[in-house]
């Protein structure tokens, strides 16, 4: 084992900033990362064991305990639950004879829960040994376990069903569906591969490229909406020995899956966008941070990069441009929503826990390894290629005055046609609902859990950066849904699970708020509890990053727009309730001494 670890470390030149890769390789080899390995690794990398554990314990998909031969990570997103996750979970549990979070005694099967895996349009879904299984049913779950018990391999089980488009390629071979429902300027098939690198970059200066992007008025498509041209300008002006382009493919906002589809069907365009950005900014290093949940695309994507190198679209003097050297490496994440925040992503790229940095300095000045770094979303980079090809004026015709261009929406939940829709900015919520075949709509979550929950009175609002910004996640809920216990609670659990924990506010406040929310949901709340939640949530405003600042949005926006649901649940006759139930608290001890709780005040 030690020889193997030495081999792995030297593969990455003993570079502790490549700790993510080192840990991935060790886990792939040994199944988990044990104490002895950590101590040995610490010694070799001149870190303390505690420092290695800091990284290992931060990410969902690293384990310091033995896992099973087959590990099932069942998605716990709100849409999965809406589509029957409970039954699937029960079927898995019954068939394995274990509870979620456990491993069978023979060590063959482990069953775990995980945050949204980017399959919201084909839930319930699970990741089983890095392969994605979608559209699960209780029947299918039982079948999978039976097959595994009879000795079948996980990849053999995939063969029974395969997704559409490139998902069916032998190199991907995933039962994942693209569900592209509507194509626009970005997705339309007028994209001749690498035409921008071949024909346009050699004839255009890097300043001109940045100018076209600036004039196109495109803003970041990840959600924050920073003007892309301006970011590139800052990046190109910052001084550093190298400059870095990072493609943020860590889409973790529950309900979004557009980057998965772009990387499956349009990876060349994304990479070409990275090369274009590299040319404009004067960068020589490109990094694509791929969320672990999309590991099944890794070999496929690396193959495309290899082809690009062969054709001189990557490497030295790209497309014959003398001084333009640029290459791309894909970094695999390990399961942490917070790494979608650009500075947390950079920390993760440096082998550390994904903890957002204080700003200033911004990544464009001091980013990856303190070098000037431009971080762009997958969708932004793909769009850049179309803009350079067709011109800024062409792009400015799309969308509305406030928000130019098109946006990919990942629509899921209670609608007949969940999937990817490319729409122009300015579209009304009511049109979006009509477009995806949603009826009897009670609410729509715009922009994922960190966005807002809207009801009928807001359905005539339009998508735009100034009014309703969105990274693209849209989850529809019909009138039969219990918004508080099915939706808001799930979202707040998500934020508790995914906080990095560094800020005192985000580490504690969502947890405190969940306590209040549960008090209301279980009928013990009073009117003041609703006011408390709104007031207390304010404290999150002083958190460092976007996750912390928006972590109470599920509660705050549902109170704002669905106040009646809260009012209906709180006790009208009393003004104060401690929320403490004596009966519940002594239940366990009563069980131990085999007697029924009996209290005089109930008589």
């Amino acid at each position: 084992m030690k020889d193997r670890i030495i081999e792995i470390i030297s593969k990455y030149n003993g570079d502790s900033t490549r700790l993510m890769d080192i840990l991935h390789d060790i886990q792939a080899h040994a199944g988990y990362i044990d104490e002895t390995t950590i101590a040995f690794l610490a010694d070799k990398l001149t870190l303390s064991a505690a420092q290695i554990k800091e990284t290992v314990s931060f990410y969902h998909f690293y384990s310091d305990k033995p896992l099973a031969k087959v590990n099932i990570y069942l998605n716990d997103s709100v849409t999965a639950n809406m589509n029957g996750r409970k039954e699937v979970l029960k079927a898995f549990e019954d068939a394995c004879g274990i509870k979620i979070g456990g491993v069978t005694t023979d060590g063959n099967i482990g069953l775990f829960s995980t945050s949204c895996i980017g399959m919201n349009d084909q839930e319930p879904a699970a990741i089983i040994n890095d392969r994605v299984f979608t559209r699960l049913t209780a029947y299918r779950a039982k079948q999978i376990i039976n097959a595994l018990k009879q000795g079948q391999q996980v990849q053999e089980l995939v063969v029974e069903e395969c997704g559409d488009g490139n998902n069916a390629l032998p190199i991907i071979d995933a039962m994942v569906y693209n569900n592209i429902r509507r194509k626009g300027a970005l997705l339309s098939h007028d994209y001749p591969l690498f035409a921008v690198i071949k024909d346009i970059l050699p004839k255009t200066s890097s300043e001109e490229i940045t100018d076209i992007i600036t004039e196109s008025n495109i803003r970041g498509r990840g959600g924050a909406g920073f003007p892309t041209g301006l970011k590139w300008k800052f990046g190109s002006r910052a001084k550093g020995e190298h400059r870095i382009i990072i493609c943020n493919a860590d889409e973790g906002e529950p309900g979004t899956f557009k980057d998965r589809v772009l990387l499956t069907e349009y990876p060349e365009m994304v990479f070409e966008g990275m090369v274009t950005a590299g040319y404009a900014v004067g960068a020589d290093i490109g990094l694509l941070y791929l969320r672990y949940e999309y590991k099944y695309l890794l070999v496929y994507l690396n193959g495309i990069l290899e082809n690009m190198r062969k054709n001189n679209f990557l490497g030295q003097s790209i497309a014959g441009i003398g001084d333009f050297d640029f290459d791309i490496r894909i970094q695999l994440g390990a399961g942490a929503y917070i790494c979608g925040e650009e500075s947390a992503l950079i920390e993760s790229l440096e082998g550390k826990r994904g903890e957002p940095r204080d700003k200033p300095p911004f990544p464009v000045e001091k980013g990856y390894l303190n070098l000037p770094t431009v971080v762009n979303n997958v969708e932004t980079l793909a769009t850049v290629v179309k803009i350079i090809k067709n011109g800024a004026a062409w792009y400015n015709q799309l969308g509305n005055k406030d928000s130019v261009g098109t946006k990919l929406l990942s629509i899921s939940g209670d609608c007949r046609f969940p999937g990817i829709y490319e729409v122009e900015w300015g579209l009304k919520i009511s049109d979006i609902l009509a477009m995806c075949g949603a009826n009897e709509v009670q609410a729509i979550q715009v922009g994922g859990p960190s966005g807002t929950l809207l009801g009928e009175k807001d359905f005539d609002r339009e998508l735009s950066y100034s009014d309703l910004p969105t990274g693209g996640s849209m989850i529809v809920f019909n009138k039969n849904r219990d918004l508080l216990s099915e939706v808001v609670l799930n979202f707040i659990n998500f934020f508790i699970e995914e906080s990095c924990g560094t800020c005192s506010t985000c580490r504690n406040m969502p947890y405190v708020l969940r306590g209040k929310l549960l008090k209301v949901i279980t009928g013990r709340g009073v009117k003041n509890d609703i006011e408390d939640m709104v007031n207390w949530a304010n404290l999150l405003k002083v958190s460092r990053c976007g996750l912390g600042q928006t972590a109470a949005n599920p509660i705050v926006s549902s109170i704002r727009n669905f106040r009646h649901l809260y009012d209906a649940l709180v006790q009208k006759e009393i003004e104060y309730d401690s929320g403490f139930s004596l009966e519940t608290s002594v239940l366990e001890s009563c069980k131990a001494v085999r007697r029924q709780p009996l209290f005089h005040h109930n008589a």
Partner: protein
Amino acid sequence: MTNKIKIKIDGKEIITDQGKTIVEAAHENGIFIPTLCNFAGALPKGCCRMCTIKINNRFMTSCTTPAAHGMEVENNTNEINDFRKGIIELLFVSGNHFCPSCEKSGNCELQALAYRYQMMVPRFPYDFPMKSVDGSSPYIIKDQNRCILCKRCIKTIKDDLGRHYFAFKERGHKLEVLLDEKMGKEISSALAKKAMENCPVGSIIFKEVGFEVPIGQRKYDHKPIGSEIEN
């Protein structure tokens, strides 16, 4: 020769050097901004959010934000002071703090700030979490009950090779600061003492010596926190 710049804090104009952070500039000029995770000599990392201020209607941490000429800072306002009090209360309810019998009582910055911001009963419900105590080091007791995860020990207690004695474990609500098992066993008594001094609360306790200075005669027993700064 450094460049002098002017900034305003709550309307009061002060002069400072270019490159200083807002909290440094304020403290040099006799204006108190409360801090917990900030520590002289270590890189600032806005973890505790206590030093939050407002510039141009945006909340920033004054320990990480460099002062810039012409900046107008809101510091001692009702809104911000309530946030600070809220943070103190959050730290109290999320741990198990037993001030009256704590070795750090009177020297504890959290306790001192709670007095300064007049915390009576936290507005949030107590969580009473189950936390562990690690006494495996010959010189240190690392008590998770009292840890506020400020990172001061992580940033300042290192060996000659730069290896950290302390590090985070897990994330979010499960986050803890762990003492490295092996290095904790080998730590010198001097460094262990320094670790305890650097800890703003009573989470890192030096073994074998206790209550050398009686409670009542300690740093903040005489004067409230911040009085050493304010003029």
